[in-house]
């Protein structure tokens, strides 16, 4: 399948009916801005067999906003985040992919900074600051994904950088996509996979969006995470020397108006 120049903002959804409109609104605004600059785009919602009314909402929203670039695809059976992300790689129309979780919010004006970064650096992924808010706050209290990738990617097997980033879909396909056998730390595994395979991962010092901390988020299931973390350690750092090995992607910071910093 030929990848067209442009961006797909991909929103994987599983039972986030209440929060979906915020994510979709921010994504549609981003597509509108990009289209006004001559960059094609779409918003692709992949629903992983939600039970909470998401699918009804999505059908209505797609009917209203199809011309604005909204497409919705619903799975008949729940397949998990990795499978959802892999389906996104298959269904997306455009080369670049912005993963936006259904409970988060994009800052539309800044997406072009990340697209230009991918274009100029040929990186596999460009990520930036995510302002962290509690669900009903209108002000951030923390920042995630706030610096360039360094060796601590291997030191702490937790999610150092969020998947709420902008990706080169072709490079993700080239490395085999997400590991569908994982049901935790799927995104962190991809960071490790890309880094150890010499792909460029670039930090852009701009704010990409808002990350909302929900009390029932998937990432809070600690015991299951620890089992998966042990497996990732076995795959990527079994003799615990990664911290000492220089990666191609260490300390890469890039701003499209400045170049590498």
């Amino acid at each position, binding site marked *: 399948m030929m990848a067209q120049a442009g961006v797909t903002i991909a929103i994987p959804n599983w039972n986030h009916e209440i929060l979906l409109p915020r994510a979709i609104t921010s994504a549609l605004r981003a597509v509108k801005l990009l289209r006004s600059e001559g960059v094609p785009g779409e918003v692709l919602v992949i629903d992983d067999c939600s039970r909470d009314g998401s699918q009804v909402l999505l059908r209505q929203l797609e009917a209203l906003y199809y011309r604005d670039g909204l497409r919705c695809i619903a799975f008949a059976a729940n397949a998990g985040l990795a499978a959802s992300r892999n389906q996104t790689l298959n269904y997306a129309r455009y080369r670049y992919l912005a993963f936006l979780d259904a409970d988060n919010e994009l800052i539309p*004006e800044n997406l072009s900074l990340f697209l230009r970064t991918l274009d100029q650096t040929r990186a596999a992924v460009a990520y*930036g600051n995510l302002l*962290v808010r509690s669900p009903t706050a209108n002000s951030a209290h923390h920042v995630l994904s*706030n610096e360039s990738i360094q060796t601590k990617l291997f030191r702490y097997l937790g999610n150092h950088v969020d998947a709420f980033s902008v990706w080169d879909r072709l490079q993700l396909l080239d490395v085999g996509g997400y590991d569908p056998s994982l049901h935790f730390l799927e995104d962190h595994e991809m960071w490790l996979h890309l880094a150890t395979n010499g792909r460029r991962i670039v930090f852009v*010092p*701009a*704010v990409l969006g808002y990350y909302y901390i929900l009390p029932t988020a998937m990432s809070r299931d600690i015991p299951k995470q620890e089992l998966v973390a042990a497996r990732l350690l076995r795959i990527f750092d079994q003799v615990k020397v990664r911290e000492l090995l220089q990666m191609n992607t260490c300390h890469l*910071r890039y*701003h499209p108006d*400045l170049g590498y910093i």
Partner: protein
Amino acid sequence: MQSDSRRLSPRALILIPGTVNYFYNLSGRRVAEAFEELGFAVEVSTLGNRPQGEYDCCFLSNISEILHAHGDAADGLRRIITLGSHCRVMASLAIDCVATPWYHRIRDFSAQAGVGLIVDLGLYDQGPFLPPADRASYRFVLSGLTRSEAQLLERLEEQDDSDRTIPWAFVGHLTPHRAALVDHLIQTVDPRGFVYMPAPAPYTETGSPHLNQQQFERVLGRTRYQVWCSHHQFFYMEPERFRSSLLTGGVPVKIVASRQEIPESAPLGYLMMEAAEAGAHLRAGGFPQLRRRFRDDWRRLPTLGQEMARLVRDFGIEIDSSLSRAA
């Protein structure tokens, strides 16, 4: 002969940390340049290099960081005490808010080393905010421009702003308060700001997750407004922030908790504001006029050489008066 004239010149030693945070290396080098303008023979060194000789004056550019970089505080203090016996005058340099633990460490280490004077290189006199017991050892010196910095400022007048595409930049350690402030700037000023807020770590010249001086200046050279707030709760005018914006063609904007906390003696008050005011001020399109005012006001300040000339005369060190006027 040249070597004879050098023996006749007063000698200054500037000790810098070498590693840890780069601003104290920078600060030391700026003071060195100011002393060269005054006709001193100047040596810039680290404690590890064991500088030899007799000096008319010696400045320790952050004694706390010098000792930290040395690695052995007790040995470092011994070396400083020994060095002090070969100097007519020894003083500590500080560029910190006097209410903070960082200044207190400078004060305490200076006392342990027998250094009786702390020179505060800043933008306003913090003496009134010190406890009485600390005032005798405190001396404010305005951190004006060196000669090379004044020349750079003149060259900046020729530059246009067509490539100054970054509306604002916020660079500093991450704190919850700063996260909230950046969110406010995103919402009320412009979402396209440059934001770099890593976890706390030293700002070294190389190998740090932070931006070093050259990287930071590259960013500021394409930025209109450098916005920041202190990482502590006390009022302070960070001189390096103001100066770095001046010398990269931008405008500094310090966010304070309340205008009430700005002392009357503090210059450049129009560049300090509460967060709620930032949106209106920074969106208003008055960047060239604000920068003009900032540059003109700074040029009216004494130069660093003039300030240092006053200081060394108070030390009883004679300097060529024609050089001190020109500095």
